[in-house]
């Protein structure tokens, strides 16, 4: 593309977008497109690695060895998702170390859902079922995102997420068919995770600031409210299968429209948590920063060792 002028590059970019094609790392792209993607992919990666904490919190206490193995594998998958999302961000000209610094200094965010605590084993089921369920609804359209590396990363992530979602549902299904205490644990988890899960789709369309341009660029394919509706329609029948009550008195099925009607989430809570005022914001970031700082001497040692080895090889 370098032989083309800026204007020609932008024409070619727009033509690719208009034809629903893929933009690749070496293609010309507007600055705003690049910046938007860096922010979105980095924050997506941050969400994966911060998301390891609430679930990792239960690995040591998982109530059976089979569940322990499944949970370990799941949290490990999230680390893997973080790795390929950071790699996708790097194709846009940033370093993983730099975007991690932006996370650690609070300049970039991660999904607010991970600022809620996991209080019982049933929360591990609820996260898999609801949070991964919402993530899938958000991410499936991203498999057709206009930026190639992000779209391809999402194909792989979505496959694993749908596996996680089934595992989460199965945890709750087992609890709901177990003792009364186990069933109560499952209901309590749904009560606490339902509204935060609905808020994973972001502010209502009437208040969403980034959506319009992202839609035009083929990064975003559906509005927040469309995706939220899709999630509710998918999830409520599953709650019925579990025999759990969705904690929304305004919930009803609109036969004519073929959709569930539901109450508006309390978005002031979402804005508060995004601003840093959620139950676990401080802890999640502090844990992440501590792991990073505790590991600094290890990363320095690895770099020093690699340098020594390279010198030895050069001398040989």
């Amino acid at each position, binding site marked *: 593309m370098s032989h083309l002028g800026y204007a020609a590059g932008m024409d070619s970019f727009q033509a690719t977008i208009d034809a629903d094609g893929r933009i690749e790392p070496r293609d010309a792209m507007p600055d705003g497109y690049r910046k938007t993607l860096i922010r979105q992919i980095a924050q997506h990666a941050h969400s994966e690695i911060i998301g*390891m904490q609430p679930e990792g919190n239960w690995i040591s206490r998982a109530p059976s060895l089979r569940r322990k193995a499944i949970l370990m594998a799941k949290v490990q998958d999230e680390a893997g998702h973080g790795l390929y999302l950071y790699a996708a961000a790097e194709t846009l000209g940033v370093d993983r170390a730099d975007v991690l610094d932006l996370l650690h200094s609070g300049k970039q965010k991660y999904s607010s859902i991970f600022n809620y605590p996991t209080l019982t084993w049933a929360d591990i089921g609820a996260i898999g079922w609801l949070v991964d369920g919402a993530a899938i609804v958000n991410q499936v359209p991203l498999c057709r995102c206009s930026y190639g590396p992000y779209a391809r990363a999402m194909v792989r992530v979505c496959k694993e997420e749908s596996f996680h979602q089934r595992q989460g549902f199965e945890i709750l299904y087992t609890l709901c068919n177990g003792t009364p205490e186990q069933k109560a644990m499952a209901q309590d988890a749904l009560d606490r995770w339902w509204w935060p899960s609905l808020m994973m789709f972001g502010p209502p369309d009437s208040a969403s600031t980034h959506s319009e341009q992202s839609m035009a660029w083929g990064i975003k394919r559906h509005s927040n409210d469309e995706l939220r509706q899709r999630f509710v329609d998918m999830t409520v029948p599953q709650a019925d299968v579990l025999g759990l009550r969705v904690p929304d008195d305004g919930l009803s099925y609109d036969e004519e429209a073929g959709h569930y009607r539901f109450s508006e989430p309390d978005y002031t809570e979402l804005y508060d948590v995004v601003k840093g005022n959620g139950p676990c914001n401080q802890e999640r970031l502090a844990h992440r920063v501590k792991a990073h700082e505790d590991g600094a001497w290890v990363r320095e040692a690895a770099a020093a060792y690699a340098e020594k080895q390279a010198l030895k090889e050069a001398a040989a």
Partner: protein
Amino acid sequence: MTDLFVYSLRLGDDALISAQRTAEWIAAAPQLEEDVALGNIGLDQLGQARTLLQYAGTVEGAGRSEDDLAYFRDEREFLNLQLCELPNGDFAHAMARLLYFATYQQLLYEELLKSSDEMLSGVAGKAVKEVAYHVDHATQWVLRLGDGTEESHQRMQAGLDALWPYTAEMFSSDELVQRLDVAVDPSTLQDEWTRRVTAVIDESTCGRPESSYQHSGGREGRHTEHMGYLLAELQHVARSHPGATW
């Protein structure tokens, strides 16, 4: 209690308690690649534990499952090495432990491949490939840390030294392993273990650890003070709901 039951528990408990400690690194490792690698290693250890505990339950014939054995035995009934239960310490401690333990497991499983007990040789057949990776991973890190920076060298040395007094227990023989012809007498592994481990330590530029004291007791169910807390965490949900399935 038959010898084979006890022997399977020993190996299974080593793997289970190691998995519990390894898993503590997930979401706390020095870099994301290491979260993935330690996740892999922990999953391998947990897989070995599950197979061995299931087998112990079958051999015992009292209807106990892997979960009954993992969640409903008390501390004095656990037969793992004390090395496996010690708190993680820093990353250098973790890699020192992995080098010591995985090298031991590698030698043990290589011998166990020849066992006439099909179940034990089957476990070994799968595990021997897994622990080869664990040994390699630990070796690479011991070399990097030992010959990295001044700080990492000191930390690596400290890790190797701190855990050395827990290594002799791996090789202590007793009447059970001598009686049980399908078992490996671990005392036969010590020379080769020492040769392999010291080769790595030498290359890492660290000094060979020495100790006038060696801990023991794990195989008789005598543990360190850390073990009770580890089990409290591992077992508490299952024990709060006796009879429940998960």
